[in-house]
């Protein structure tokens, strides 16, 4: 009798260790990024993918280059949007090259060549509950992208995939940029 009490006590205590690992799995879809693909402006009606050479992306107001987009050649990008504001701006450099001014040891006189276009993304936000481990995510509605005009825009045309474009997951393309 005494022993069974002890055994049961141990069984009961073992349940204390049974808390589920409350870590948000990387497979769980949480706050999505905006997915844009690049197309050849020569064929605006047939959608031929066209990579951007030496692409460098940096958020306006952010001191860092967007990780993974520091001078790359790609036809597909994922831009994280601010969850605190309904507007996010990015600088997209095409043909980003640092010219060392023939003094490779001295970087004070270096200058950047390339064509910088700024896009302004506006949207509204909804916070959606995901799970115990992940909490809430933000999804975006009524997303639109406007190009800030300059004297030499390399971006020629921006189209959304749907009307009243939303950004709710990371698996589908939401915008097309023609260049």
């Amino acid at each position, binding site marked *: 009798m005494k022993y069974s009490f002890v055994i049961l006590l141990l069984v*009961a205590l073992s349940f204390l260790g*049974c808390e589920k690992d409350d870590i*948000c799995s990387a497979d769980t879809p949480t706050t999505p990024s905006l997915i844009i693909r690049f197309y050849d402006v020569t064929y605006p009606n047939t959608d031929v993918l066209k990579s951007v050479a030496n692409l460098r992306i940096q*958020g306006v107001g*952010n001191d860092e280059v967007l990780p993974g987009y520091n001078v790359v050649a790609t036809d597909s990008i994922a831009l994280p949007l*601010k969850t*605190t504001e309904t507007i996010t701006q990015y600088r997209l450099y095409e043909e980003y090259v640092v010219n060392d001014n023939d003094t490779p040891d001295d970087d004070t006189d270096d200058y950047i060549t390339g064509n910088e276009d700024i896009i302004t993304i506006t949207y509204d936000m909804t916070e959606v509950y995901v799970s115990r481990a992940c*909490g809430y995510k933000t999804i975006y509605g009524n997303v639109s992208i406007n190009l800030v005009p300059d004297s030499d825009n390399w971006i020629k045309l921006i189209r959304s995939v749907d009307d009243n474009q939303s950004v709710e997951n990371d698996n589908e393309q939401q915008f097309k940029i023609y260049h």
Partner: protein
Amino acid sequence: MTMNNNLKYIIKTLIVVLCFSGSLLAQTKTPEINVKDSLAVIEQDSTIIKQKYGLRVGLELSQLVRTAFDGEYQGFEVVGDYRLTKFIYLAGEFGAEKTTSSNTYYNATTQGTYFKAGVDYNFYKNWLEMENLIYGGFRIGASAFSQTLNSYTVYTTNQYWQPQFSSSDVKTYDGLTALWAELVIGLKVEIVNNLYLGAHVSVKGLISQEEPNNFENLYIPGFNQTYDSLGVGFGFGYSVSYLIPFYKKDK
């Protein structure tokens, strides 16, 4: 404890054997014999032992301990059972809990009351007049509660823009309910006359629940923490209870 009873048993048997050579006693029906009084017992056949039937009420202990030491928890539970037959007890609990669930991304408080009702089956064969239980049982549990989202921060894997949106607008979701079934195993040991210490573990399956809009029931009073979409819960507890004997009946 067992040794002691073995000894008692031997002594009683000896006394009975000695008495047996004398005349058999005529008084076969004496319903109010005190079982603790071994002299009274020997007036009857030693195999007839009376057991107490009545209402046992008590308190759950682990919730009280948690209330004392865990700043994010308050709770109590009243436990009770009523002996129906030799093996079967009607059993139930009611209580109230308030607890806060939090991680880096949210902080929410659940508060509510619950009750459980069911049956325990004692499958322990007691020595003589001992009245301990090792039981298995089931319960149906129901809870009415509210959940308050105190604050949250949006989760995103990409931390390029910081900080993330966070809100500390308190949102309360009232009128939440849950219904579940529960399997229990446990024991109750009589430590002094009519006073019992108990321990049990339980596994619970959610039957239905009313969930808040754009949130979930992180905790259900009486059911404990919910596990993402599984609908399964676990529990354990210790209790101290007092038996109020109503009548006695042959073992």
